[in-house]
């Protein structure tokens, strides 16, 4: 088992798995077994939900047997012998994530702060020629939480478990997570009280740095001079990520900008 993050670059290319061979991927708490059989792919997976688990390994071919006690085993069948190639791609979650700072933040008037959060990834298993999405698996079964003004209005999100921080190095490099950056600019005359931050994962792209770590699109949030909140703007233009490789695009495209509002905030008087 390795914790060498640079090995994560292996996801950039498709894998070849001839008939009769198995593949085993260990990606943090997630364990995936893939089997290529005549006219079928077999996918089994399980997750320990141990969010401290930083292990990473990919064995293809894997010699051994698929453990019987896995959470799921699905057989994907074809009418003819299927292509040997498949792609395993890390993607961002299907719901937003909510992160909390250790204690609520007060963004002072005229200040711009960068907040960094760490969100767990999903893994997508796809075949090529013909294209089929076989699985879309969460690496970690994150607890769910509610993000909204009241119990009547809001949305169900995942909780990140790991606190939001102001300095990126404070986040421990975990291979199965992506680092998400939010810039909060407070142009108003009052301090901005930030208790929780929503990362709108389905609307963000996923990039990989040269070091192997994953990053999401950057988010910018502006509180205007008159105190009105502008919705978050997502930066995922290629020039902003020149030193990174795009791994997967957003799951959804923004139709309603209100869905992106990342803060559960109150104005505080300092």
């Amino acid at each position, binding site marked *: 088992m390795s914790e060498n993050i640079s090995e994560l670059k292996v996801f950039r290319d498709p894998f070849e798995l001839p008939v009769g061979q198995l593949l085993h991927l260990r990606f943090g708490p997630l364990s995936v077994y893939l089997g290529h059989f005549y006219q079928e792919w077999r996918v089994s997976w399980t997750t320990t939900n141990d969010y401290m688990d930083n292990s990473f390994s990919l064995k293809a071919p894997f010699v051994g047997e698929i453990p019987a006690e896995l959470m799921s085993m699905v057989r994907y069948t074809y009418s003819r012998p299927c292509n040997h190639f498949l792609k395993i791609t890390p993607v961002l979650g299907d719901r937003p994530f*909510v992160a909390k700072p250790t204690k609520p933040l007060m963004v002072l008037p005229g200040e711009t702060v960068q907040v960094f959060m760490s969100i767990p990834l999903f893994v997508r298993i796809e075949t090529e020629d013909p294209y089929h999405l076989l699985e879309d698996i969460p690496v970690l*079964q994150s*607890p*769910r*939480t*509610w*993000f909204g003004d009241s*119990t*009547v209005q*809001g*949305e*169900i999100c995942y*909780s990140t478990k790991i606190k939001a921080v102001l300095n990126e190095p404070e986040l421990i490099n975990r291979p199965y997570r992506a680092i998400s950056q939010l810039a909060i600019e407070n142009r108003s005359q009052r301090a901005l009280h930030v208790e929780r931050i929503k990362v709108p994962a389905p609307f963000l792209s996923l990039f990989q740095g040269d070091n192997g770590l994953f990053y999401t699109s950057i988010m910018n949030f502006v509180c205007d001079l008159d105190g009105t909140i502008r919705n978050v703007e997502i930066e995922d233009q290629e020039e902003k990520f020149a030193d990174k490789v795009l791994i997967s695009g957003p799951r959804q495209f923004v139709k309603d900008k209100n869905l992106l509002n990342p803060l559960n905030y109150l104005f505080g008087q300092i």
Partner: protein
Amino acid sequence: MNAYITSLLGTELALKVAAVFLVLISFFILSRLLSLIIRFFFKEGGNRQKQLVWRKISKYTLFALAVVIVLQILGADMNVILGAAGVLSIAVGFAAQTSVSNLISGLFLMFERPFVIGDVIEVSGVRGEVLTIDLLSMRIRTMENTLVRVPNETVMKTQVVNYSHFPIRRHDIVFSVSYTVGLNDIKSLLLNLVEHNPYCLEEPEPLFLVQKVGEYFLEIKFGVWGETKNFLLLQSTFAEQMREAFIQHKIALPQRHVHVEQRNLE
């Protein structure tokens, strides 16, 4: 035979029959076309309830229009028919008070929309998923997979509980413990269970309330939030977890202690 048919086709009656036939066919096609358009239009928004209402409205309106046109073709005097219909409607109104009441209630329900198709509701002691909302009655599929028809009038008159309206719900558990149990211990135990139950939401925060100080027990209310769609799973799994945790941590349940003193009367 041929001569007979030819003479019949030439008659006014044959023309009228053909016209009636043509009108009925046209209205039937129009009704199907309109139904398809409504289905397509509301498919985008995924609103089955609105789709159902507009389909019914269009169907009955076209039907009424077709009847009027057919009667006109057949040469019926509309004034006489309308007069007769007025008298008839009074008679039918008396005879079918309940149906009319259900019909009006149905229209109110369709526009007020206290619930929609697919919601889980409780009405008149029946709890289940709403399958249809028709003009006279609604159909509910109970948890035991039985079909219950509830007249719309009943729905309008009684209290309806909609369990699906909001995306999250609170599950309240009321239980009693002995005075000897530390409240902080029990609170942290329950919060730990919430953290490990996949159907519990982290936020809104769970409610922990001592709601009654009894003679020999404390009554506690613990409320935990979960997604509405997983509510039954939350109820079941949390109860199981609580039972196991209480046994494991030897949480004393309240017992009445009676001290019997035996005195020697001699």
